[in-house]
């Protein structure tokens, strides 16, 4: 076998700590190595040409490239090899950058290590077998999880391209947090006015199957061939019969039994309800925990008044299974609840601000509802405790955000803007009121964003004070806000009527559970991880699963929408062809040697292993062996390690190859 070794300098990234010429020179002398060279940028066109030329000139059978992580350029070098006539699986990458030059300082030690890494790759490539990619069919249907603005946008984009969409929303209505907002920055246009037409479009779209009040409970399979199980929670309303007249809601005797979560607990709702008037679908839900019928079997008022007989107390949760080709996750965020937390909680509370204790210390979404014309105060600014109009209002930014001691280190990105918006909305409605904003930094990057903040300061006379607030306490119906103006260097105290805390954006509590269900990674906060922070921001590391909106990190509406469209187009790229090529890293059983213990079948996470009968000449079954369905196998190799007689091999990572790597140490 003739092997070519190519050592990349990566500009200076590798060569600064690894003596690349020495590595290349050392490899020249190794058995099997026909050709060895180093070059400044192997991934560049001249670099790739160098590889191709060398393959032709020296009649190489396999190549080893010492460069960056295989996650970066493995594909580049494989393609180069293929165009020169080498099987792509006879290309091995030695990770000299991420695993060597970037993490070590000592040139001698790093060079030694680089040589060993390349040697390991050479030994492996010697035993690599040519493999061909596996073709699998693609189901051209997208599952969109989350019906906020990101999910709506992604669903509409995909559906308008002519592909089917299943849109799953946990709440009774789509719309998400955007439907709760009063106005949006920096244009101050009405949030619901621009959102509701989109919601209706989703509802009426023939290609979109809308499943509200539903959750994804299981995802199996792989890119192009997922199988999703969706739990449709019982609404106790027959959706086909309900006309959405709302009579049941007005007649329900449990008027104020439950907090209205759409109004951020600033109002109440009955047991049977639609979250808000423009809800899509406009079909109520019965809350079993409140409904009298479920408590004592009596009432049934809604049944009596519904002339379409749509109420169904006996309705049960149902499970739906859908074949899916790609998944777009758009589950959004929630606001950091700043009430008191326990010692073992990931987050700590804000006892010093008395949230949860003082009714007039509220969070941003609550203020949105107070400012909203459709909200509990019909758009008049009134404080929750006594309904009086606050004449002095204090906004505090970075509550939770940028506060590692409370558990959140990141900037929530949208608070600077929405606080400016809140202050303006307040000043527009309470002309004689005073508005103060405590901030640490103003982060208003974006088109017309900084101008917006300046408008609040210059035109609307909002007082911005640079400094964090230390404490809030109540004194005679006023809230004493203790802060320091760090620019003037003077302590300040404001006796406010209402305090609005711009609390952090955090992922939903069950985001990690969903991530585990789908099989995508998430960070320590619970935000889903993108495949690459710069170049693959809308893809998860799991092929065929894309991310959109604030479930990936804090985002405002335009960012969520553009990310959703990007995710949609990623899914459509996948659907552009009928079949999909998959890495041929799959396991195979040596049937002669298989002892038929089927431990492999027990450990296989994908159910790819079947029982196969081996018959003798007389047609009598004389043994049973394991058989691996190549279409289902995902190539984890758990079976190979479990197999006692070592009768299973994983293509591309077979035991001989790994032994060779160990031996090269």
């Amino acid at each position, binding site marked *: 076998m003739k092997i070519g070794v190519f050592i990349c300098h990566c500009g200076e990234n590798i060569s600064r700590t690894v003596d690349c010429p020495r590595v290349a020179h050392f490899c020249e002398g190794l058995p099997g190595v026909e050709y060895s060279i180093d070059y400044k940028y192997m991934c560049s066109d001249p670099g790739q040409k160098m590889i191709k030329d060398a393959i032709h000139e020296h009649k190489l059978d396999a190549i080893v490239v010492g460069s960056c992580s295989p996650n970066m350029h493995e594909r580049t070098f494989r393609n180069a090899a293929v165009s020169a006539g080498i099987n792509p699986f006879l290309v091995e990458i030695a990770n000299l950058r991420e695993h060597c030059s970037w993490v070590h300082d000592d040139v001698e030690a790093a060079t030694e290590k680089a040589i060993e890494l390349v040697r390991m790759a050479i030994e492996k490539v010697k035993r690599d077998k040519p493999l061909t990619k596996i073709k699998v069919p693609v189901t051209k249907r997208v599952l969109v999880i989350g019906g906020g603005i990101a999910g709506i946008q992604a669903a509409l984009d995909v559906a308008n391209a002519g592909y089917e969409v299943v849109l799953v929303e946990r709440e009774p209505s789509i719309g998400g947090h955007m439907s709760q907002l009063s106005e949006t920055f920096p244009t101050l246009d009405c949030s619901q006015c621009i959102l509701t037409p989109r919601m209706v479009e989703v509802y009426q779209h023939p290609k979109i199957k809308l499943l509200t009040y539903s959750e994804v409970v299981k995802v199996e399979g792989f890119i192009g061939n997922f199988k999703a199980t969706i739990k449709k929670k019982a609404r106790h309303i027959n959706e086909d019969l309900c006309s959405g007249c709302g009579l049941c809601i007005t007649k329900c005797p449990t008027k104020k039994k439950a907090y209205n979560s759409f109004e951020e607990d600033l109002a109440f709702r009955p047991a049977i309800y639609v979250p808000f008037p423009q809800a899509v679908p406009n079909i109520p839900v019965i809350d079993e925990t409140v409904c009298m019928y479920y408590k004592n079997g009596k009432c049934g008022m809604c049944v009596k008044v519904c002339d379409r007989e749509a109420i169904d107390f006996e309705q049960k949760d149902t499970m739906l299974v859908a074949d899916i080709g790609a998944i777009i996750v758009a589950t959004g965020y929630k606001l950091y609840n700043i009430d008191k937390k326990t010692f073992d909680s990931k987050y700590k509370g804000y006892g*010093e601000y008395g949230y949860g204790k003082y009714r007039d210390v509220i969070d941003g979404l609550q203020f949105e509802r107070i400012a909203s014309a459709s909200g509990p105060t019909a758009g008049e600014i009134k404080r929750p405790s006594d309904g009086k109009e606050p004449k002095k209002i204090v906004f505090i930014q*970075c509550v939770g955000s*940028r*506060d*590692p*001691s*409370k558990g959140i280190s990141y900037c929530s990105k949208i608070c600077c803007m929405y606080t400016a918006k809140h202050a303006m909305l307040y000043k527009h409605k309470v002309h004689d009121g005073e508005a103060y904003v405590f901030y*640490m930094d103003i982060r208003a990057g974006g088109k017309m964003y900084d101008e917006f903040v300046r408008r609040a300061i210059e035109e609307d006379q909002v007082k911005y004070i*640079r*400094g*964090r*607030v*230390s*404490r809030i306490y109540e004194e005679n119906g006023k809230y004493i806000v*203790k*802060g*320091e*103006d*760090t*620019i003037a*260097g003077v*302590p*300040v105290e404001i006796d406010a009527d209402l305090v609005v805390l711009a609390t952090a954006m955090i992922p939903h509590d069950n985001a990690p559970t969903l991530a585990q269900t789908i099989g995508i990674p998430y960070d320590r906060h619970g935000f889903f991880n993108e495949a690459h922070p710069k170049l693959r921001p809308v893809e998860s590391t799991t092929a065929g699963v894309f991310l959109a909106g604030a479930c990936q990190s804090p985002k405002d509406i335009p960012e969520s929408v553009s990310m959703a469209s990007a995710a949609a187009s990623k899914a459509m790229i996948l659907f552009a062809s009928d079949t999909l090529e998959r890495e041929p890293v799959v396991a195979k059983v040596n049937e002669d040697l298989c002892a038929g213990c089927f431990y492999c079948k027990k450990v296989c996470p994908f159910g790819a292993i079947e029982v196969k009968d081996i018959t003798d000449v007389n047609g009598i079954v004389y043994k049973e062996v394991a058989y691996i369905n190549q279409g289902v196998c995902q190539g984890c190799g758990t079976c190979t390690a479990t197999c006692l007689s070592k009768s299973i091999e994983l293509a591309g990572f077979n035991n001989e190859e790994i032994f060779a790597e160990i031996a090269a140490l």
Partner: protein
Amino acid sequence: MICREAQTRKADKNMSGNALKDTKKLQASFVPPTPSAPDTAQEHSETANQKHIRSIADEITEKTFQNVSLCYQCGKCSAGCPVRFYMEVAPNKIVRLIQLGLYEEALNSNTPWLCAGCLTCSTRCPNSFDLAKFMDAVREVALEKGVEVGERDILNFHKAFLDQIKHHGRSYEVGLVADYKMRTLNLLQDVDSAPGMFVKGKLSVLPHNVKDKKSVKEIFEKTSIKKNQTPL
């Protein structure tokens, strides 16, 4: 940021030779105060053509096990400080001055001495910077350097208190007050409460002594502060 730009601008002016009386020239010593490895220190000396001296920020880091750069100047500490109104400079500014390498201003102010060590700032700091501990270290450094202390009386009280412990192992209030008054010549303060205390039997005329007084004295001797380790 504004403050720093202004300082730098002033520093530039200073370079042109026309030194203003209040110009603060920022030194290289406000680079991250984590103890640097020997090789990088050498590199530093080569480039800057001066030896890397252990800065006061370094000393504070060593004493407190925390990086001075942790403070991002949000001001929550100053906002909640109960004795903020009596201070010349806000507590967060003291950290800023140390971060900038303007040690004299920081050490001369009365702020560290007025700090009551109530831990309000440390408890509420969003970036988990223990400001109270930082203030302890600032005072300690000030004593080591022999800097003129902004609050003489408070220091005298601490000295008097520690003297009592050094000699008796426990604090002895009568001796403490007498010692403090001798140091400050503030003879009339507290005369209103002392007789009452005697009457109520709260103050004993004789000190309470620890049996093993020697061991306590030894602690004092072994940990005594060495003055003027390096110039300011």
